């Protein structure tokens, strides 16, 4: 399951997509919208936009990498687009592997790669009504 959706994310569905009888550990990461406060204003929501086909192609590249680098680990990764409110997940990554080391490393690798390379953008909406696009740190 590699997907971009404008629906709320279903964590159990992402998890279920990676489980099989060979798996001894599942590491799952959720990126959650945080009520970030810069002193004068507070984030109330994030709005995501994606170049759908390029982002999915990047997810597929990451999934292949995870499988090869982390002993056949299986990955599912879903990113939400549109408006996501504080406390809701914007992205869910699940990685299953025979042992926990590979599950943790694969999951961390995947979210790091997604944040650096997937063609997805984020606009911060603040409590004072202002809004601005915000890039990830390089």
């Amino acid at each position, binding site marked *: 399951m590699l997907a971009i959706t404008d629906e709320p994310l279903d964590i159990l569905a992402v998890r279920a997509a990676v489980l099989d009888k060979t798996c001894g550990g599942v590491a799952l990461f959720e*990126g959650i919208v945080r009520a970030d406060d810069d002193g004068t204003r507070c984030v109330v929501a994030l709005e*995501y*936009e*994606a*170049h759908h*086909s*390029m*982002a999915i*192609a990047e997810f597929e590249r990451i999934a292949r990498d995870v499988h090869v680098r982390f002993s056949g680990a299986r990955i599912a990764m879903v*990113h939400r687009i549109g408006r996501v409110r504080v406390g809701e997940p*914007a*992205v869910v990554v699940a990685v299953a592997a025979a042992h926990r080391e590979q599950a943790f490393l694969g999951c961390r690798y995947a*979210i790091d790669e*997604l*944040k*650096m*390379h*997937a*063609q*997805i*953008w*984020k*606009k911060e909406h603040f409590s004072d009504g202002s809004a601005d*696009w*915000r*890039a*990830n740190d*390089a």
Partner: protein
Amino acid sequence: MIHLAFFARIAEICGTSERTIALDPAANIAMVWDTLEQEFPALQAMRPSTRAAVNGSLVSFEHRLAADDEVAFLPPVGGG
């Protein structure tokens, strides 16, 4: 014709997420961007951080265009 796709802040500046332009036989991506900058001066500040993709693959601004290419202009990413 060339099909342009704009995202995030670039789409906001251009006031649209897509546009079609006539293909100049000598056109590369830099020339397309320069044309856009003349129309939307706010794009100038974004050039150093903007990447371009043709038909879904990242390319340099020197990349030469062909008929029916889809050119996407991509600001720095912010997913996750």
